[in-house]
């Protein structure tokens, strides 16, 4: 029995505690991301944003969550019940499981697996299912159109994200996320791989269906897209999933290009600040860029979106993979 406790019981408890800790932090971050979004866009449009509930409106996200939970869950007639109920659960849980491999600091990671970056890529390519299942199961033409657009968009931009990841991997020589961060100790990858950083950032916007690529939910033409038939807690799960996957993409960007937990300069006073704080600051910066873009740019047209993905990003990122590989070989910089 004691053997069982040290062999399985204790590790399971520790892992559960770690998971709980990460999930709570992520959920709170998500709640304040919605608040930050409304505040940032408010200030950019010379408004105040939420300022009624709590001091500076800080309790607004919780009021919204409570409101959503108290509403009635509506099942549309003709909806495919099983798929309709599973779709938001899939979206939400996929957004959360991605956090299993993300290193918050040196060694602060739940699962330090060899193929961490591929795991993240796989999870982000799976998130299309939540949307497409929701659109189909709703039995509504707006939801279905939104889901189809979203699926096409996410599949298209995944290709260039794949090439960006390949470029970074060439420079690192490992698929482990902690190794990717450690490889940036001398220089963060956004300096030598600057074009890929931009491509990744734009593709991340498209992958998370954010403005200016928020065609799947284009309010003006599709009402609200794939989630139009959802209400109450099922809608809340989609909402949570979307914002958490934004945070995941920002974390991925900061790990791949902005040196994860590393300080900007490796001397005091920068080294006094714990790595997790640097990581959080980098994520917050990328998220601010997400919101900034949303407040600044108008929505892309569908054919422009497809042209950008297939005719601009794909050839360019492919070319840059070749250029990077060539440079690494020519100057003998290949990691061993």
């Amino acid at each position, binding site marked *: 029995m004691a053997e069982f406790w040290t062999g*399985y019981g204790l590790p399971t408890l520790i892992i559960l505690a770690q998971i709980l800790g990460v999930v709570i932090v992520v959920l709170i971050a998500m709640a304040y991301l919605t608040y930050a979004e409304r505040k940032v866009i408010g200030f950019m449009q010379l408004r105040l944003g939420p300022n009624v509930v709590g001091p500076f409106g800080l309790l607004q996200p919780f009021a919204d969550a409570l409101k959503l939970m108290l509403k009635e869950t509506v099942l549309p007639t003709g909806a*495919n019940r099983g*798929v309709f109920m599973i779709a938001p659960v899939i979206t939400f849980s996929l957004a959360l499981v991605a956090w299993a491999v993300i290193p918050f600091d040196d060694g602060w990671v739940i699962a330090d*697996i*060899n*193929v961490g970056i*591929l795991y993240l*890529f796989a999870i982000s*390519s799976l998130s299309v299912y939540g949307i497409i299942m929701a659109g189909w199961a709703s039995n509504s033409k707006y939801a279905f159109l939104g889901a189809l657009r979203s699926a096409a968009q996410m599949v298209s931009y*995944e290709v260039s994200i794949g090439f960006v990841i390949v470029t970074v991997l060439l420079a690192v020589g490992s698929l482990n996320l902690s190794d990717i961060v450690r490889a940036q100790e001398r220089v963060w990858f956004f300096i030598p791989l600057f074009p890929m950083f931009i491509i990744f950032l734009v593709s991340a916007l498209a992958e998370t269906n954010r403005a200016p690529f928020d065609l799947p939910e284009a309010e003006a033409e599709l009402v609200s897209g794939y989630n139009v038939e959802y209400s109450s807690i099922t809608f809340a799960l989609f909402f949570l999933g979307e914002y958490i996957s934004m945070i995941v993409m920002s974390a991925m960007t900061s790990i791949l290009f902005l040196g994860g937990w590393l300080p900007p300069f490796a001397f005091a006073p920068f080294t006094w600040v714990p790595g997790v704080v640097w990581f959080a600051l980098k994520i917050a910066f990328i998220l601010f860029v997400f919101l900034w873009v949303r407040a600044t740019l108008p929505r892309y047209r569908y054919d422009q979106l497809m042209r950008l993905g297939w005719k601009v990003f794909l050839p360019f990122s492919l070319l840059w993979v070749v250029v990077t590989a060539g440079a690494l070989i020519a100057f003998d910089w290949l990691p061993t």
Partner: protein
Amino acid sequence: MIIQALAFYLFAIVAVASGAMVISSRNPVHSVLFLILAFFNSAGLFVLLGAEFLAMILVVVYVGAVAVLFLFVVMMLDINFSEMREGFLQYLPIGGAIGLVLLAELVLIFGSWVVSPEAGEVAVSPTPPLGEMSNTAALGQLIYTDFIYLFQAAGLVLLVAMIGAIVLTLRKREGVKRQVIADQVSRRPGDVLEIKKVPSGSGG
């Protein structure tokens, strides 16, 4: 070890059960969703074998790309389920006979299957020691050294298939307005705008 065995049985049972649901569920969209579940559990089995690279590639390629296209096509189909179930008994004898013939053929083929004596050697010889490197690196070393020609040939086959698909489906339609970015960029204000001075009092 117990946990690994339990995980194996969980993945295996779910994979087999969802495989059975793929062919038995009435709704084709449900079939595709069960197929995805089967892929997912196979990826879990790969992880248990220690082949985490293959597991992730299985999820990225099959679940993330191929199955999405399946789902696309199946969702677009307009199928009347009651019509589909009609005439089930009528076609049962023919379908059953074809199935029996196929089964007999398969039994004949596998019954006379002879494993080449060198097969065992070929399979084990070039594997790098897995204790020293991750299986991603080991796979890369094999594919890009010993099997480089086969790997390139597979890539060429895929390229030809891709070009073929594009050639088969590309068609030029008349009378479609397309955006030509170069034309828009090269357009100058002087080509399309003219500024006229209207003296006060004589306008409009």
